[in-house]
């Protein structure tokens, strides 16, 4: 169990965000923070590194402190057995296969009970992220505190056994927050919808000079043709094989190069299997490049997205798919499946193009490659849509607004 020390060196985040979204939204954020300045906020999750939640927390905790809302971040840790249980819990909440052992429930609560004793949870507002630390509320809630559960995962297909493990705890929270309405389980606790967000100042999204992009992409020796790119791990639900098929259909009409960039599959047996399937499907094609990138290749992904003519996200199922917002932020023409949180980001024909089939995807690739004005128009509108709705300051603002609401401020 530990308190995470968030890096506070470098220029103030608030100044950086102000330069990106303007003074008006920052003043709204500051106004909201002023109302909560005498409260202490504690964030809790189960890891300080790796994964989207930790990435967001490193920024949000620092931003909230800059705003004058005293915020700390506690990490709940466990032993291999606990992580085995939470892995099963995670998979089952996603609707995937998995089985709990007969005493897993007791052990899961035992670790939470221990964490409740050790973590510094004396704040006025406690924001618990994801299922692993959800039972803390049962073991540590003090009078006058307000507890909020933030679920970052899609619970629409949650297995009953997994939901039963955490539902009694979730019911004790003052409110719960989900990324998308489809992810909300049947719940008496008041639920709010707060979409996740991207960081415009991070390596994955910051502006890059031409020289930087040249240097980052030079090792891959990609051809001077329009690139159609999908950045996703090699997972069947991201449909990389479908991407290859759609690209092959589109290539009958237009000249382009497909780049499939995913995480290294070394430690993921299923990922390695899917990667092999994709390689087999692309065998013999010199217009397709498959890149297996290390987890910290943020700048390479940034450069790839920026240099692509079209970015795809042809998933069969999705959580929120922030890769879409990342590409929109870079003014790219994005073609994506109408699943999960994607339709919130892609307003069809305005900020991008939604598809539902391989043929539909091929048609939209052809159409967008042939029409620079269409790409420019969607790219411009997509960037503004992300600026207004999917950047970190908006997410910070929404959390503060939920707390303001819990404290009785609002209408």
């Amino acid at each position: 169990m530990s308190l995470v020390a968030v890096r506070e060196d470098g220029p103030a985040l608030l100044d950086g965000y102000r330069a990106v979204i303007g003074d008006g939204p920052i003043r709204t954020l500051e106004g909201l923070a002023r109302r909560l300045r005498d409260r202490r906020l504690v964030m809790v999750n189960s890891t300080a590194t790796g994964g989207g939640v930790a990435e967001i927390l490193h920024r949000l905790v620092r931003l909230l402190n800059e705003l004058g809302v005293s915020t700390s971040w506690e990490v709940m840790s466990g032993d291999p057995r606990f992580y085995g249980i939470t892995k099963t819990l995670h998979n089952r909440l996603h609707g995937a296969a998995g089985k709990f052992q007969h005493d897993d429930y007791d052990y899961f609560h035992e670790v939470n009970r221990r964490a409740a004793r050790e973590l510094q949870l004396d704040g006025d507002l406690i924001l618990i992220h994801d299922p692993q630390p959800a039972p803390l509320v049962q073991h540590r809630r003090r009078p006058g505190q307000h507890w909020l559960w933030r679920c970052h995962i899609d619970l629409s297909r949650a297995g009953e056994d997994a939901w039963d493990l955490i539902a009694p705890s979730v019911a004790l929270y003052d409110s719960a927050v989900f990324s998308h309405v489809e992810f909300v389980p049947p719940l008496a606790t008041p639920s709010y919808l707060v979409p996740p967000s991207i960081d415009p100042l991070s390596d994955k999204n910051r502006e890059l000079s031409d020289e930087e992009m040249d240097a980052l992409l030079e090792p891959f020796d990609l051809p001077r043709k329009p690139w159609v790119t999908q950045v996703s791990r090699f997972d069947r639900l991201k449909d990389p094989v479908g991407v290859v098929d759609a690209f092959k259909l589109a290539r009958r009409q237009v000249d382009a190069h497909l780049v499939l960039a995913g995480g290294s599959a070394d430690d993921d047996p299923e990922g390695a299997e899917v990667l092999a399937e994709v390689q087999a499907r692309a065998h013999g094609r010199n217009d397709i490049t498959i890149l297996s990138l290390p987890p910290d290749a943020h700048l390479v992904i940034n450069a790839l997205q920026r240099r692509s003519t079209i970015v795809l996200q042809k998933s069969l199922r999705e959580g929120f798919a922030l890769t879409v917002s990342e590409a929109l932020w870079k003014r790219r023409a994005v073609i994506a499946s109408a699943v999960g949180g994607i339709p919130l980001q892609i307003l069809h024909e305005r900020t991008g193009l939604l598809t539902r089939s391989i043929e539909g995807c091929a048609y939209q690739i052809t159409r967008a490659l042939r029409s620079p004005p269409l790409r420019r128009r969607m790219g411009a509108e997509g960037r503004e849509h992300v600026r207004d709705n999917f950047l970190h300051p908006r997410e910070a603002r929404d959390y503060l607004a939920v707390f303001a609401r819990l404290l009785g401020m609002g209408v």
Partner: protein
Amino acid sequence: MTGAPEFELVSVVHLVRPAGIEVHDLEELRQALERVPERALFHHTAGRLLRHPATDELPPDDISGWVAGVVQDRETAERMSFAVESSRSAEPMRAALIEVLNSVPLKDRTAHDAPPGGDLVFLTAESVPIPTGDRIQDARELIEHLAEADASVWFYHLIEQPWSSPDRAPLDDWLRSHGAARLAETLFQTAHTGRPLEDIRQRVLRRWRFNRLGQRVAAAAGSTEKERLEAGREAMTRLVRRMNQPGDET
């Protein structure tokens, strides 16, 4: 002059929640519209202005957007869009939307439905108003602050408050009680044209500057020859200073 001497500008954050109502076809939509909370109607119609403040052209409201894009009944969708654009508060909008759907034969209302996964899920929005600390004393100060304010400030005073109090919004009242009825009219009329918020901001500010210019010209016409010469000399001095120091905007 009556009313409070000061008026504080307020911005707003909308917290979105599931409304617990989901519809699959036009008949279910008609039934849902009879009971859907006012705040849900607000979120799906007026609320889109705040979600797309800087767009060139607003997307349709969520309800007629669903009827056009998912159910694919474009004629009914057009008529519903018109009903939304013509209503400034919940109950008239609800009645107008139901009237459109009532005019569609029942068999068509059930035949026009969403494909799997395409149901319309109603959401509702709770408002968290946030005082900005900007207190204005007259019309000029109001415009100065609005020129720099977040889109949510414009939305709260010009769209959301009139929606909640259709008789007269607090800012409208305050301006009229401070002798600025004409500005109030300009502000609220422009806000109800259904344009994006940034467009409304540009139009109001342009009109304000134009009127101020007119007032200055009229004032100058009534001044003495000596005052006009003096004003001309000052203007020339400022121009020369700007030409010599291009970076200096003062």
